[in-house]
């Protein structure tokens, strides 16, 4: 089932957290829309005519084999692709109806945050890591309150509340990643992008972060790239399957994993793919 690029998406809302409103359709608001997007590194085209939306307060997952372009697509959503000089984006990406390419990039990145594959805390204390975004964006208010709020939302507060001034590098991998999530949440982004956030973590840490994401979507819209499709099945409400730069299928997660409409999707999720 293809989504149109108009804001609003008609889908069967049999969402992942089980409220099987069987057969009911509703129009969900889209936080971000991606229309006719092509992407190039120099002369090589990576993404071909991508059209999809990121539904408000839901988790949208991008799956596909390695090198299919899903990370490239994600990074375009907060214009991180611009750190590579030869990259070129054509088409339109909108946040709340406004073209992100026309906005100031640092303001955009405050509204669309990102968590990376490898935990990348700064060489600072735990407190300073979370406060970083607040400080550089000149956000007013009680920094320590906001830091605490973020750490609680990232389910890390209890573990670090007595050690806020220790170096972030003393935390375990899973904790560091939750710290990065807290850091991103501190500036209260409207959208949170996660690029394979659990691929460097052990199963228990992964499970904790998955549960965290399911809770966080009440707070902020989430888009996640994962090479682990079971993870997409477990946590996402919508899934997009990307193959060699093309969006093959984009639909509600239960649909995509039980009755995919494209044979390529079926081949991938049943593991018959190379």
């Amino acid at each position: 089932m293809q989504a149109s690029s108009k804001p609003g998406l008609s889908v069967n809302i049999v969402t992942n957290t089980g409220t099987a409103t069987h057969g009911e359709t509703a129009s969900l608001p889209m936080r971000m829309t991606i229309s006719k997007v092509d992407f190039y590194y120099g002369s090589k085209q990576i993404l071909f005519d991508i059209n999809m939306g990121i539904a408000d307060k839901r988790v949208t997952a991008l799956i596909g084999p390695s090198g299919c372009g899903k990370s490239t697509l994600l990074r375009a959503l907060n214009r991180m692709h611009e750190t590579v000089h030869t990259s070129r984006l054509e088409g339109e990406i909108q946040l709340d109806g406004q073209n992100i390419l026309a906005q100031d990039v640092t303001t955009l990145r405050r509204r669309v945050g990102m968590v990376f594959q490898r935990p990348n805390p700064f060489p600072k204390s735990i407190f300073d890591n979370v406060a970083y975004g607040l400080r550089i964006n000149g956000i007013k208010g009680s920094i320590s309150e906001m830091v605490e709020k973020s750490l609680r939302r990232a389910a890390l507060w209890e573990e670090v509340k007595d050690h806020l001034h220790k170096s972030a590098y003393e935390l375990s991998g899973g904790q560091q990643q939750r710290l990065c999530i807290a850091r991103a949440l501190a500036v209260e982004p409207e959208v949170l992008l996660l690029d394979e956030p659990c691929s460097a973590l052990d199963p228990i840490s992964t499970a904790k972060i998955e549960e965290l994401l399911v809770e966080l979507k009440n707070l902020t819209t989430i888009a996640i790239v994962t090479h682990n499709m079971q993870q997409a099945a477990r946590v996402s409400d919508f899934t997009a399957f990307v193959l060699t730069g093309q969006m093959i299928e984009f639909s509600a997660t239960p649909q995509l994993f039980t009755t995919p409409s494209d044979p390529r999707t079926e081949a991938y999720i049943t593991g018959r793919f190379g």
Partner: protein
Amino acid sequence: MERHFEKDLNELKERLLWMGSLAERAVHQSVHAMLDTDEQLAKRVLDEEDAINELQLEIDDRVVQLLALHQLMAADLRFVLAVSRINNDLERIGDQAVNIAQGALRILRHPRVKPYVDLPRMSELVEEQVRNALNAVVRRDVELAQKVMATDDQVDHYRDQIFRELLTYMMGDSSVVFPAFELILVAKNLERIGDHATNIAEDVIYIVQGQDIRHPSVDRR
């Protein structure tokens, strides 16, 4: 750590138990419609059949989703698979209850063939079987499940008894053949309901102990 799919598992269980209570009620009402010659009751059973069938579809949908999305293991996996089977048994129980109600409607105008003695006893036994089977699911009670399975012989015995008795009546008086035959069918329906309850009990053992105890005569080596 609580996982979010546990909520889905609990909802699945709730829906199944709700279906079970509807099926139980259908059995009770259809039997009494027949024993008490109650036309209204019989019609009510027919009206409520849809609800049971809808639940079957809903539960199957949920099962497919849970399996596809959550990579269930061990007890969770067995539970969901068992739910899928119990789902079918409950729907069949509903069907059998409808059959009984339809039979009741057909012999509404006919005088009683004989005082109902064994039929009420048999129906009580079967209703108890259904009730116990569902309780065994809720409580994961292996002993209760085994009790349900043990009752099956008795139920079969009642069916044979009723059959023999009514056969005698039919041979003696040809005018009672129609209602007597319907009563035999009712006994058959009840026995089938009992079988389905026994299936449910076997599924409980599968959920709890991981053993598939169907068809003990089959060599599973």
